[in-house]
């Protein structure tokens, strides 16, 4: 029986769109990107329709549909959303069209076609929708793993100089986590089979009363997969590589959405299915979370590569999210989910604007830039907004969520909360240092070649490919052979020919790309209430599953905190 086809359509539309784009002739990049944009906008529309149809006071899972898929395994193709999944779908819906637009003028590396890039992108969108909308654990697992393939090809085919290494590392890390989770998924089925009928349906599994020893093992199985995905600190080393080497569009979705599957998984699967084990392991997770906040922030400050830097800031933010999830209060949980959305927007914007800068300069190194603000004020302005959102300045969206997490965690976990708060200061440091070094000061670096070395244009094209090494970017840029540049150009925008006009400000297309994200940063910063209304019932239900005492902290504080942010 199926009640609502809305979610099915949200999976099917991009999947079909991917097939259509892949079937286009190789040289029809213009058609491909128009189709990709159209399809992703349809998905956004469907996500908005789903939000309208969602009743915040209604059942936990809504818009459900279910058909038997593999009867032999007891698997259903079952979709449905709670408030948490719904906001993630909205995030996917917003980010994908933005990414399509941001990649609009990218050029594929030699022998590759942007058509393929857009096809993978749409397939990735289908998997991302599926992973958040699945209410069958097996189906979730299938989307969780299938998601790797498009991202693997996006990084590996269209990424930076070390793309092969980064793609394989990303794939193997995730696959390893996924396989450990597979053991737990099967274990969950076996437990349900011994308690009656074997099933993968989330709602039935939630009712199970699992033996604590078994819970511990199953929890760890799921936890490892999600901790790699999120990523929590000792398992994070794949992200800086993948984030740095991925093309900007891929990096936005990788950090903005894919990693959220990890924290989403904590909330959706670890807590409700294994409440005893979750409580038992919570201190351990919190240690990892807080260590992540501090350690990744310190590492971020030390990075010379801007994309790696942004990746490390994300790891720090995931520490906050994990803190919110495992503090076991509705307020902190709501903050964590809101953080997942806000982080996707803020970091997505930061990645995009960094990508725009890299496209102009051809180097990913912080040291190759300086004084950009004077010549490109709009670029610098957006950069600043993205940075401030990233450090959670009041008035930006991230502030609300970070504040909710901290205030919600304090009653139950004061020590961890206080330690994590130090991360805010570090965040201010790494963001502002980055901004100051690249945007202010005397004009210098690759964008302002010394005494107008004419003909230095080609170096800008070549460098993203031939290594973001400082040497080739800074010294090799000038006299670079004109022929090599265009032939080997990867995903860089066209560089203007004359050194004087070499640094141009944001184009109209680029403004269209950043405008919705900037609007969301500020809009959700002053009025987060609609999202909170969606998220809170689902988080409250999750917290009651885990046996936390939501009554103790929530009713009084939640209205208060939202007043505070208004």
């Amino acid at each position: 029986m199926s009640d609502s086809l809305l979610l099915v359509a949200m999976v099917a539309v991009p999947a079909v769109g991917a097939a259509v784009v892949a079937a286009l002739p190789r040289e029809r990049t213009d058609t491909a990107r128009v189709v990709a944009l159209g399809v992703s906008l349809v998905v956004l529309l469907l996500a908005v329709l789903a939000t309208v149809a969602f009743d915040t006071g209604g059942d936990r899972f809504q818009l459900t549909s279910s058909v038997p898929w593999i009867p032999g395994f007891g698997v259903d193709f079952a979709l449905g959303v709670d408030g948490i999944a719904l906001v993630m779908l909205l995030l996917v819906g917003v980010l994908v069209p933005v990414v399509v637009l941001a990649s609009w003028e990218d050029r594929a590396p030699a022998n590759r076609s942007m058509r393929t890039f857009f096809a993978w992108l749409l397939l990735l969108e289908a998997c991302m929708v599926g992973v958040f909308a699945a209410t069958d654990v097996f189906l979730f697992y299938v989307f969780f793993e299938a998601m790797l393939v498009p991202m693997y090809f996006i990084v590996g085919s269209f990424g930076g100089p070390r793309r092969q290494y980064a793609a394989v590392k990303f794939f193997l890390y995730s696959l390893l986590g996924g396989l450990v989770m597979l053991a737990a998924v099967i274990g969950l089925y076996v437990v349900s089979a011994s308690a009656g009928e074997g099933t993968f349906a989330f709602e039935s599994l939630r009712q199970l009363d699992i033996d604590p020893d078994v819970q511990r093992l199953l929890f760890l199985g799921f936890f490892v997969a999600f901790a790699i995905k999120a990523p929590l600190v000792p398992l994070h080393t794949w992200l800086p590589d993948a984030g740095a080497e991925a093309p900007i569009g891929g990096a936005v979705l990788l950090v903005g959405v894919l990693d959220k599957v990890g924290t989403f998984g904590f909330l959706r699967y670890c807590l409700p299915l294994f409440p005893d084990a979750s409580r038992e392991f919570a201190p351990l997770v919190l240690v990892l979370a807080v260590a992540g906040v501090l350690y990744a922030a310190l590492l971020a400050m030390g990075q010379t590569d801007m994309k790696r830097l942004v990746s490390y800031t994300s790891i720090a933010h995931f520490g906050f999210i994990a803190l919110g999830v495992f503090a076991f209060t509705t307020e902190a949980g709501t903050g964590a989910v809101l953080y997942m959305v806000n982080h996707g927007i803020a970091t997505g914007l930061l990645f995009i604007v960094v990508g725009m800068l890299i496209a102009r300069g051809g180097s990913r190194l912080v040291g190759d830039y300086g004084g950009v603000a004077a010549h490109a004020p709009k670029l610098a302005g957006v950069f600043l907004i993205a940075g401030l959102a990233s450090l959670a300045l009041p008035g930006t969206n991230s502030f609300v969520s970070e504040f909710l997490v901290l205030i919600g965690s304090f009653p139950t976990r004061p020590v961890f909360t206080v330690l994590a708060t130090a991360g805010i200061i570090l965040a201010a440091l790494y963001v502002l240092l980055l901004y100051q070094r690249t945007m202010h000061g005397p004009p210098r670096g690759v964008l302002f070649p010394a005494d107008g070395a004419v003909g230095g244009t080609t170096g800008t094209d070549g460098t993203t490919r031939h290594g973001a090494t400082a040497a080739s970017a800074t010294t090799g840029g000038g006299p670079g052979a004109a022929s090599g540049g265009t032939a080997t150009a990867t995903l860089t925008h066209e560089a203007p020919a004359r050194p004087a006009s070499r640094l141009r400000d944001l184009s109209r297309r680029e403004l269209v790309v950043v405008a919705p994200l900037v609007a969301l940063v500020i809009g959700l910063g002053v009025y987060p209430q609609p999202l909170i209304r969606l998220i809170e019932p689902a988080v409250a239900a999750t917290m009651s599953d885990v046996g936390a005492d939501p009554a103790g902290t929530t009713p009084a504080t939640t209205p208060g905190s939202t007043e505070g942010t208004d």
Partner: protein
Amino acid sequence: MPIEAPDLSLAALAPLLFVFGAACIGVLVEAFGPRDSRHPVQVAVALVGTVGGLVATLLLAGTREVTAGGALAVDGAGLFLQATIAGLGALSLLLFAERNLDPARSAFVVSAAVPAGSVRDRELLTVQRVQTEVYPLATFAIGGMMLFVTANDLLIMFVALEVLSLPLYLISGLARRRRLLSQEAAVKYFLLGSFASAFFLYGLALVYGATGSVQLGAVREAVAAGETDTLLVLGLALLIVGLLFKASVAPFHTWTPDVYQGAPTPVTAFMAACTKVAAFGAILRLLYVAFGTEEWTWRPLVYGVAIVSMVVGAVLGLTQTDLKRMLAYSSVAHAGFLLTGVLGFPGSGDPAGTGLPAVMFYLLAYGLTTLGAFAVLTLVRSGDGEATHLSQWAGLSQRSPLTAAVMSLFLLALAGIPLTSGFTGKFAVFRAAIEDGAWPLALVALLASAVAAFFYLRVIVLMYFSEPAADGPTVGVPGLPTTIVLAVTAAATLVLGVVPGAVLGLADRAAIFVG
């Protein structure tokens, strides 16, 4: 003393009769048919025989009987595996029949007796004549395999083992290119295979000595009656060693990489797909039917070799630079995964376990995928034959996007990525193992899968993310036979991953042993 003729159900024997009949006709064609028309006739006879065998097994679905004086057990599991072997065999024969790829029109040497490198050998390289003896030989091997999986009697099992092995030893040595390598492989396979056969025979003798019978049913009764003495356990161990050799399970796998590499690729495909099915069919029948009541006698052994096989296959696979050797180690690793499913045995008397159907499904899925992967290998060629060195595959996606895409599909399936048949199979066998409490084994299996995924991925990385070498290989345009094989295997790999319900249900219903 009058000798009574054993009861024979011709209907239940129909699949075997079809295939062996076709093989015998093939021999006659070889002897009396005119040379010019032999190739098409032989291909037709072999295909009619195997496809006829396949249809016959399908028509027999639901049959459960012990016939031929208790020597054959025609049951659900036996028929499922027979159908799998016949189907995969027919596809392999199509690969044998490909004439478009090699400039000399065939992958097989014209006259195997001519010494490699001699003047006559060089002359033969350019003639248009093709080898046709391989078709009856392969058909005999297919017949032997189909007999192997229904044998309800250790003696018949041994005969079937020899019927399937001898032709394989021979056709392994018939490669047209790199003949010495091929001949070396054949000799190695023969020597080690003879050892394995001897082990099996010795084990048979010991079991007979312990129980007084070679029929699986009688052995089971003797075992259940508590006559489990050292002789019996030793006999069982030797029998299993013989079978594990055929299934290329580590540590009895040492022949696999050399033989897979040296044999003509269509033959490798045939061995990788069909021999595996046949060997596991026999392992399942021996363990479940004869020794099912005394699980403790074999469980620790299978547990141990499963781990060794997975680890050896995955780790040594990492170090390979030749695609055929890499797929050989992959086959060793997959044999280990299959053994985890074998452990999902429900215990005596309860036929509803998940291990048997899981292994049956896995064999079908793996056979199709690996057959397809080897078929792709036949397409990519450089000067004198197939380009199987990894480095030659760099940038293949730019030379031939379709070939690279199909190969990637097979590799992802072998790695067990969801929505491919490999994932469904792995899920089934791991579930069986975990249900039986063998979760540490399943965990090892999952870690081994992750390691193995690395070497599958490496090929994809090379094909897609590396720049093509200047003097790289060419991608041949396959003729109709290979195209059919690729289409069928690729479609099956996808369908068994996306909508496996029907086939899983079939395997579930068929998972019954009689005897």
